[in-house]
């Protein structure tokens, strides 16, 4: 493929710059879409890598008249299907119709929705010690509520509720900060 050959020569051409730029913008949404349809963190990483490769390899089939995010989302959906077929794992929690509805929701999501999450890092600092600990156990260590409740000696329902409250708190925080910057979604 010519695109790949260009890269092998070590020469970076305009097409490469273009696809890189477009993908950088589309990637947060595609990543969130994958999160919405694949629950396991490790599987998601794997799939995201396959999608990135597929986007670059099939860029010559992208019609510039169409929104890039929508096209990339289509590539993501196809890779997801391939993934399910190859792995034969029960990765899919949702039926195909739900996945399609979600694909549309992500394609049409305003850019501001993803931009306001840039405040997340700041907002994480506002969590108290226990909130931060819960976040780390869930997101860094990948523990599910049952395992967290074992670790912290808390009832499972308390852990689930606390995680839900943390997300609500963070959501409110990023919206507040985005609104303050005049970029609310």
């Amino acid at each position, binding site marked *: 493929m010519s695109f790949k050959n260009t890269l092998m020569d070590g020469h*970076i051409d305009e097409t490469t710059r273009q696809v890189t730029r477009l993908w950088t913008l589309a990637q947060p949404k595609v990543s969130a879409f994958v999160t919405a349809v694949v629950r396991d963190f490790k599987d998601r990483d*794997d799939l995201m890598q396959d999608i990135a*490769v597929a986007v670059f390899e099939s860029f010559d089939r992208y019609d510039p008249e169409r929104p890039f995010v929508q096209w990339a989302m289509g590539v993501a959906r196809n890779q997801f299907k391939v993934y399910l077929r190859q792995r034969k794992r029960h990765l899919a929690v*949702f039926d195909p119709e739900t996945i399609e509805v979600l694909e549309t929701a992500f394609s049409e999501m305003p850019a501001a929705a993803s931009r306001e999450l840039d405040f997340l890092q700041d907002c994480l600092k506002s969590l108290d010690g226990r909130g931060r600990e819960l976040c780390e156990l869930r997101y860094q260590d990948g523990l599910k509520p049952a395992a967290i409740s074992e670790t912290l000696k808390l009832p499972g329902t308390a852990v689930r509720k606390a995680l839900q409250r943390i997300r609500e708190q963070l959501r409110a925080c990023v919206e507040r900060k985005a609104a303050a910057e005049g970029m609310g979604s």
Partner: protein
Amino acid sequence: MSRDIDELINGYLDESLSEEESPELADWIKADPAHARQFARAAMLHDRLQSELNAGIEGDEADDDAEAGNVVAFPGASVGRWLIPLAAMIVLLMTLLLREAPPQKRASEAPPEIGGFATLAHSVDAHFAESKALTIGQRLEAGAIQLAAGLIRIQFDSGVEVTLQGPAHYELLKTNLTRLNSGLLTANVPPGAEGFRVDTPTAEVTDLGTSFGVHLDEDGASHVSVFDGEVEVAEPDSGEKKRLKEGEQAVVTSDRKLESAEFDAKPYGRIWPISFGVVESTGSFELAPPWPRRPALINSDKHIYLFSDGYRRRLRHPLLVNISEPGEVVLRDELTPKVITVGQIVRSFIVQHQPESSMPRPEAKRARGSITFDRPILGLITQLEELRASSGRFSKRKVRGQPRTQLEFTGTPAGDRVTLSADRRTLTVDLAAPNGSTDVLRVIIDARPP
């Protein structure tokens, strides 16, 4: 709707939805595009939270100055995910496209067509009794393994690695439940696979994120030694439990008494190298003992020590290595730098030569040796910048401070030499550590199942 919708959404994100609840959530999503948008936004926050918090790990564990350059987050993490310079992005994409294994091949790496939940990863002089002989690469499902002699290493799909020393009778029951009826084993349980259990006739050993050993003696007592992390040992009849930390040992006697015991790693002397995939070592090479594990404390004029650094893991960020091609490196311009791409399953080891005497010496102490792994070496990290960037990425605890020295490829008598064999399995080093300094390099092994 039987449950509050927010609870359902959060249940999905926390992987705690029941089989009945998933379709309930799906129906709600389909009922209204506004619902789909609400769920999409929740998933987006969840996705970003995961990226932010994991980007933090690298930042916390490596020094700030180690982040520059080659720990670029893509695509899973995000300190700079939105700020990656275009050029860096392109380099990453090039490495993505040029990686050795195409996506199709990599995706089929965990054999999906064949059943089972583990793979026989390695065997050394293994003889099997009664049960059929097992071959390397063979998928294993629930069943008993009668190992008459020799050693085998089993790689579970969950990431757990169990090394078994014969004679032993070991049963795989479920992906996270096994039973040792006789013999000796070590288990390495990476983060995410906690809860892995080894039962014995007298004890239940539950991992809490760790590396540990279990062996049954002739009297039927079960000895449990913890090399890293923490395990829980229970005597099932009385329900008595004990938590053991690294460097601790307990025994459940044949009359079912749970007692603390003196830590003794000697029984694991033979199994230890195999559990790390080390086939052979020659010259000055020594595998660091199970305990104590702090490299800073291990000085030796004679020995080059190999330390395991963390667990088998999938790279979440690209990793820059300095030597990636077979051959000898004597001069700095013979380095063959390369980026190991995201998604690759690796294991990291540290090679250290730290002479003990602090007295000034006219010349550097030299140590030579080679070490052979049962899996290919993907790359070696020998230069300061890359050593620092990779420090703390593989084990959560800081086994050592920031590296201060690097290998010196000067071609002079005081220079270092490193050779990677043609089959990538053997590393030969000839190291000169000048006065009071330490030579350190990191070895990155391909840890995919065979």
